[in-house]
């Protein structure tokens, strides 16, 4: 079967000369293909990265640089005594876990529902995609008035079933609203990726399985999902990185309107990156904030590597050699 071919283990024997030439050729080809990124990274990425890292070793406060001083690892040492940093990291991990898991289910679900020939497919796809392009500022306003206890549509709908129901969602359930808002806004992007991924699955495979008497759920479980695993890995990693870094959503869902850097979300939505943002823009501790963000980078990198490592057990690649 085409899709089921696995890269063969290379035998560990001495390689002939022609193969080594081929290996060199392959390496050159690889570097030729990736050269745009490599050159771009060295020219545009490296300098800002080094500067950004250097910043975290200073007392930089964003104002003029006459007073800048190197403080070594002080900023990193300070994190250990910062209760808000640790608490907010905990909240962040809960939020990210919920968002990635629920997001994956919804994105994959909508893609599967809209993969085959369905009446009004273009319309449905557009409806699911739309929130993805609604700017976050507007999206947040809509969710706030949508969940508002006074004039909100959500409570009005619940009241049809349960007339006495009154809930101030963004105060009593801020993280739930944040997760729903985020999943709502992200579904379109994930759905597009999964729809594209589903195209790579040869239909003969499914047809063959169905002829063998497999039901649609069995086809999904044994053919579609395994072949979709590279795309699932992509989506899990990307949504995790993305949701670890969201900053505007919790700020915009804070009570009132976004007004100045001191905008403060409810405790439950005071995520790690909100804390870093506050340290930079409210407390004027740019150096310390940068250190917090570099630690977040390490956490992200660690989580990603764990997922990528584990993916060797569940992701199915068709890589040449």
């Amino acid at each position, binding site marked *: 079967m085409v899709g089921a071919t696995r890269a063969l283990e290379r035998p560990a024997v001495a390689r002939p000369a022609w193969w080594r030439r081929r290996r060199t050729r392959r390496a050159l080809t690889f570097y030729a293909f*990736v050269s*745009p990124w490599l050159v771009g990274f060295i020219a545009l990425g490296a300098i800002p990265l080094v500067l950004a890292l250097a*910043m975290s070793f200073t007392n930089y406060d964003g104002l003029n640089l006459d007073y800048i001083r190197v403080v070594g690892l002080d900023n990193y040492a300070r994190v250990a005594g910062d209760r808000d940093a640790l608490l907010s990291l905990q909240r962040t991990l809960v939020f990210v876990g919920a968002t990635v898991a629920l997001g994956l289910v919804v994105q994959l679900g909508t893609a599967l529902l809209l993969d085959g020939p369905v009446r009004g497919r273009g319309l449905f796809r*557009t*409806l699911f995609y739309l929130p993805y392009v609604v700017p976050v500022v*507007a999206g947040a306003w809509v969710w706030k008035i949508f969940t508002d206890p006074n004039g909100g549509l959500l409570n009005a709908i619940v009241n049809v079933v349960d007339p006495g129901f009154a809930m101030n969602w963004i105060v009593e359930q801020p993280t739930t609203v944040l997760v729903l808002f985020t999943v709502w806004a992200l579904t379109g992007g994930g759905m597009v990726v999964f729809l594209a991924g589903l195209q*790579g699955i040869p239909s003969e495979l499914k047809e063959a399985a169905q002829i063998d008497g497999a039901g649609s759920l069995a086809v999904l479980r044994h053919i579609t999902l395994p072949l979709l695993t590279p795309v699932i890995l992509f989506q899990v990693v990307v949504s995790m990185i993305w949701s670890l870094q969201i900053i505007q959503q919790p700020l915009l869902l804070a009570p009132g309107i976004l007004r100045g850097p001191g905008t403060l979300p409810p405790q439950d939505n005071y995520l790690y990156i909100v804390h870093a943002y506050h340290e930079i823009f409210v407390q004027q501790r740019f150096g310390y904030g940068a250190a917090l963000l570099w630690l977040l980078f390490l956490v992200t990198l660690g989580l990603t590597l764990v997922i990528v490592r584990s993916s060797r057990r569940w992701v199915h690649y068709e*890589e040449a050699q």
Partner: protein
Amino acid sequence: MRAAALRYPALVIAATAFSLPTFWVLVTSVKKQSEFSSLRLFPSAPEWANYQLAITLADFARFATNSLVLATSYTVIVVLTSALVGYGFARHRAPLRDQLFVVVLAMMMVPNVVLFVPQFVLFAKLELTNTYWPWILWALGASPLLVFLFRQFFASFPRELADAAEVDGAGPLRVFVQIFVPNAWPAFAAALIFAYTWVWGDYLYPILLLNDANTTLAVKLATAYADPHGNPLQTVTMAGVVLYVLPLVVIFFVAQRFIIRGVVTTGLRG
């Protein structure tokens, strides 16, 4: 077949739930400003003037043109470069490849906030602030996200695809252009949608690098609809959002046609 019968009701319920907030954008866009966040669910009479205000308060045509130029040029370039790079990572082995790929992934993980000031300093020294060059240069350097996307797609293509062509003596670039690209329309469509949506919607970098005259619609959408004291006019903003989203919906509608089951079968043709 039970699952198939449930598909349509499931779709309708999910789509309805999803569309309620979206629908609310529309409803809000024709409310009076004093009706936003009031006890009244629906507007007493549609306030079409919001749309007129949305266009005049932000000089809509001018900033939409800026967004169009910036997003189009960035997208065309970045999709091409990212496809090349992603293909390289997916189908060619070389020393340091996996380490370099970790660097690609890592670039997605650096929080923007720490990079803003250094990036501005870099472009200021190159005298490229207040121009669109930073975006062009970024596009030429490929986007880590899209590289990752293309890598995952190209990696899942059947290996017979390349083997057959290589036996015919085709060079690596020809294999890429003639075999892989034609079979990767869904990935290209997805990448195009992503890149376009990102530039169209981003306002952090335009605020950082552009000035008030050549900035994008997203910046204006976030800032222009306000009274002289900067207090937001949400209903006008919603009208602006409706207009702002339209081009993206058109792009999506066109692009998603490439994501239609049956275009690609095994990928092995001829």
